[in-house]
């Protein structure tokens, strides 16, 4: 399958590029079929007929689903004040 990256097929290459361009669906689990429908028509059709590209699409969906539970950190309410205080302290030090 790896061989998809090395293949000269323009369609396979376009499909991979289209997959890389799909927006991130954070915290949402979606099927390969859903993602296929999000692809441009030519690439969506190609994914139906090319085994390697179908597998790439499935891997794409599996990975996104697996990572959906990943925690996304956010700054706490005091963070900006903490940074500015640290800058002031460092300036005093120097």
């Amino acid at each position, binding site marked *: 399958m790896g061989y998809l990256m090395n293949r000269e097929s323009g369609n396979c290459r376009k499909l991979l590029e289209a997959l890389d361009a799909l927006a991130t669906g954070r915290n949402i689990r979606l099927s390969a079929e859903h993602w296929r429908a999000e692809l441009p028509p030519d690439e969506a059709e190609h994914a139906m007929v090319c085994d390697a590209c179908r597998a790439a699409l499935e891997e794409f969906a599996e990975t996104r689903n697996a*990572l959906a539970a990943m925690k996304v950190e956010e700054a706490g309410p*005091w963070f900006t004040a903490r940074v500015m205080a640290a800058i002031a302290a460092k300036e005093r030090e120097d």
Partner: protein
Amino acid sequence: MARVPKTEALTLRQLGKPQTGGTFARGEEDRELVKRAQKEDKQAFETLVMRHQNRVFAVAGGILRNREDVEDIAQQVFLKAYFSIKRFDQRAAFSTWLYKITVNECWDLLRKRKVRPLVFEAELSQEQTQAYQASSEQSDGRPDTSEQLAARQQVEELMSCLDERDRTMLVLKEVQGFSVEEIAEIMEINANTVKVRLFRARQKITERVRRRRGAER
């Protein structure tokens, strides 16, 4: 209840720019803020911190697993940015420059510790487990539920098949929504290399997911 300190940072209205959400407009506003910060305007820098802090946290959080480390690194990133902003020539976007500092700071920390950042609860003592769970608090201080913790533990296990570089790339792409080109710039590698490595990382993750599914049957 603790009060959030009143900030004197500039609002977009004070900047005299329309409050548009587009990437281009955001980039233009950043450029103006950077110019002012380069002239030692602290309010402008404070506004830059507010605009980018969540993304810096998200990027660092994708590489490090401990909330305290993420906070320390995020602070370090903005300190570094503040004290080197005069040398930043604005050829790249401020955000790209900042995220590049973030990734490098995270990797430096991991290198300094010379330990794999990934630990599983099963390998920890009771004391360490409590510390791990405490570090898994949400940013508002509420602890994660046990289901959330278990799900995250599973993600960590899956990701353990990737090296740090591939893990970072995958998180930047699939969780944070960076484009291949942005990742290439942040990590200072060729965009084609990013594509190939992402492709292989997805294969590895899928293989693990399927193996786990097979074992559960």
